Each structure stands twice: as C-alpha cells, then as structure tokens.
C-alpha cells in the first residue's frame, strides 16, 4: 500500500513540478517586462502642460503605460489565485459557450500555467522594481561620469547589485509557488494533494493526505539550500 501511495503521489509531484518550472520559466522574464512597464515615465500628452483648461493640464501628467500596468498588477495581486484559475478555465465556457482549452492536448495544464505565469509575473514585477530602484542613483551616475555606456552601466554596475537585493524576496515567493501548485486541483489537475486525498474515497484511509507534506518539505528544503548558497555567493560585497 505504502508504495502504491508513494507512486501515486510522485505522479502528482510530476504535475506539480511541471507547473512549477513552467511558471518560473515564463513569469521571470514577463515579470521583468511588467516591472519596466510600471516604471515607465512616458507622458505622451506632456505638450499640454500649462494649458488653461484644467482637464488638458491634468492630462499632461498622465503616464499611460505605468498607469495601465499598475492597475493590472493591482487586480491580479488583489484577487485570489484560486478565483483567477476558476475564471480562466471555466469562464469562457460559462459566459461565451466556448471552451478554448479543448484546443490543446493538455488544456487544463495549459490554462493553469497561463494563470500562474501572469499571477506570479505580477508579484515578481514588484520585487524587480524594488531591486532596480533600490540601487542608488549614485551608482549609475558614477558610471556615467566614468564614460561608461548605458549597457555597460547596467551589466557591469547595477545588475549584480539588483540581483543581490532581489534574491531574498524572490526565494520567499518561489517557495510560496511550490505550495500554490496545490491550487491546481480546483480545475481537476491531479497534483500532490489531490493524489493523496484520492485514497480517502477509494480506500478510506487518511494518512496519504498528510503524507504529502513530506514531499513539499523535501522540495522546499532543497530550494532553501539552493537560495542559501546563492546568498552566500554574494556575501562578499554589501
């Protein structure tokens, strides 16, 4: 029985790992793009500055890109991931009588990865933004007066300082992601919890459900060691 349960949960681990790694793979770069968007200072109406008309004058200050990005980030971070999953997966069928997810070989997983990627990208964008803005302007200015190009300043001066600042909050978020994979069961993906729970119905035993904790702990433990190692690697400077 023990091996049967373990095997079944390991299968769930496979699903969870797929979700975890695909989410990381796509949400990290997307998060960086969103963070640039949220910091955009583009003011297309700035020529209207100083107009008599109060409305036009106000328009001059509007930064459309950062306003839109910040609103999206607010909505995504302000609603539960579980709700987002339900809307994305069941929404089209309920409201439009169409289920686009059938078009994919593994539609459930596809919808799930998509939702996770957008959700986590929003969280990551805030962390990245903190990292970028956390590098003192003096660093960039020092590079400038030394005749370095913008690219050189980014790669040789700011990037590593950014990474150092971003690693601790990122490791937190990534560890949360491990446990958030369990939300996938809401759209009937057999991840770890669902795999363990299924033995309650079929065999009337509860211990497999609690046994799943071991798998989460092992995975998070490995990640903790990894992040600890990365942080130590960058301990040589402040």
């Amino acid at each position: 029985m023990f091996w049967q349960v373990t095997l079944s949960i390991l299968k769930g681990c496979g699903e969870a790992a797929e979700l975890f790694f695909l989410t990381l793979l796509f949400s990290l770069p997307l998060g960086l793009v969103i963070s640039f968007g949220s910091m955009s200072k583009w003011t297309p109406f700035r020529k209207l500055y100083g107009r008599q008309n109060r409305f036009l004058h106000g328009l001059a200050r509007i930064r459309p890109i950062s306003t839109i990005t910040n609103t999206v980030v607010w909505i995504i971070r302000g609603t539960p991931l579980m709700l987002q999953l339900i809307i994305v997966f069941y929404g089209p069928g309920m409201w439009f009588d169409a289920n686009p997810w059938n078009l994919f070989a593994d539609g459930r997983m596809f919808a799930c990865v998509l939702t996770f990627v957008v959700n986590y990208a929003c969280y990551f964008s805030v962390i990245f933004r903190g990292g970028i803005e956390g590098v003192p302007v003096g660093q960039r200015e020092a590079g400038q007066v030394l005749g370095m190009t913008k690219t050189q300043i980014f790669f040789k001066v700011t990037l590593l300082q950014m990474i150092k600042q971003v690693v601790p909050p990122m490791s937190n978020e990534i560890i949360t992601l491990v446990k958030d994979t369990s939300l996938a069961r809401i759209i009937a993906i057999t991840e770890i919890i669902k795999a363990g729970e299924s033995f309650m119905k079929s065999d009337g035993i509860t211990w497999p459900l609690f046994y799943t904790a071991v798998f989460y702990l092992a995975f998070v433990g490995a990640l903790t060691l990894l992040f600890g190692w990365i942080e130590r690697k960058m301990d040589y400077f402040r």
Partner: protein
Amino acid sequence: MAILEVRNIEKHFGATRVLEDISFELERGQALAIIGSSGSGKTTLLRCLNFLETPDQGSISVEGSVIFDAADPATQKESELRKKRLHFGMVFQSFNLFPQYTALENVTLAVKLLAKERQDYKQNKNRILAEIEDEGKALLERMGLSDRADHYPHQLSGGQQQRVAIARALALHPDILCFDEPTSALDPELTGEVLKVIRSLADQKTTMIIVTHEMAFARDVADQVIFMDGGVIVEQGPAKEVIDNPKQERTRQFLSRYAEN
C-alpha cells in the same frame, strides 16, 4: 588660454531657478574652490559640467572648443556626450564606489572598458590590460592605499573609500577634476587624510574644481575662489583675497559665520 570657460549657465528645476548667469574661467594647473551656503547651487553647477544635468542656457568650452551650447543642438548629441564627459572627472560627496568590485577593480573598470574601443585592442589585449593594472596600482599607491588594493569598499574606512574614488577619477586622466564636498560625509578625524591627497594633487598642478565647506583649506590650496549664493556668483577672485578681504557684504556675512564656529 583658459582650459575651461563657462558662459552664462542657467538651470531651472521646474519653476525654480537654481543657477543664474554663471560665468567663470579656469586656467590649466589651477585649483578653483566654490564656497557658499547650502542650497546655493554648487552641486548643480558641478553636475552641469559633468552633464549629469543639462543647462537651460549658456555654454561650456574646454581648451577653446565649445563642448556644450544650449543654443546649439548639435553640441548636445547623446552619442558624443559620453566622450565629452571624459574631459571632467567627478568625486562625489558619498564616494559612490562600486560595492561588488575591489579597490583596484573600481579604479580600472572604466579604463578597461574604454580600452576595448581602441583600434589595437585585439592584438595587444594582454599588454594593454597589464598596463592598466599597473597604472591602477600606481594610483592607489599615490593615494597611500597600496595595501588595500584587494579590499572591497565595505572593508574600507570612509577616508580610504574617498581616496579610492579619487584614484578612480584620476585613472581616466580628466582635464579637470571636480570634487563635490569630498569630506562632508567623513568623520572629522578622517577628513585630514583626504584633504592631504587633494593638497598634493594641487602641488602637482592638477586642474581642479573643489566645492567645499573647509574655508581654511580653500584659502590655502585653491588659487581662485567663487562664492555662490541663491544660484548666482556673488564674488570671485584670488583665494586669499576673497577669503581674507571679501568685497561683498553677503560674502562677509557668510565667512563670519564660519569664523564664529
């Protein structure tokens, strides 16, 4: 001919005018001290010279050629700005050393990056890099820091960090070296070692502009002094004259506040 000519510089931040009609000249090998109360625009002036801010009006010439003219967009091309900055070196109040590099790496980083643009870089790479290393070490030695070359900034005292920053600026051989209150962020017992280095640079006829609150130092080391107040130059002239016998009432008031302390 003056190495630096600044003509009618004006700078606004939004609606506030921070610099107004700033004009002065600096001869090669001379040291110019800029004094003035807080908020008088000293930092902004140095930042304009280093193109960290763009003046709204006026022109800047180095060795007779106009490198910036607010009225002439051709002098403001982003692509050339980077090269023009190299006429000036800048030492910041807060050092701004790169924390992830050792003292020596801080000094050599920009020089190495710049060397990549040389025609003969590929052929002579090893020789060029070795020369840069040697010069970096020599500069640190001049700053009295030869035993600190492999230390990271956080392992150095404030005075040592500022001396590394001075070596870093010197490594690019600027025509004019600018200091923005180089000792203001230092404990009193550490200011001496930095001032000593700047004094020795003056003895070696380095062309410098030094924003400072150290009046005695300005009087001894600088050839010229500019007193600024409210964004304008109130008085300028030979250092000892301005500090010992100021002609303007505002300069007198400012200096007497220092005499009291």
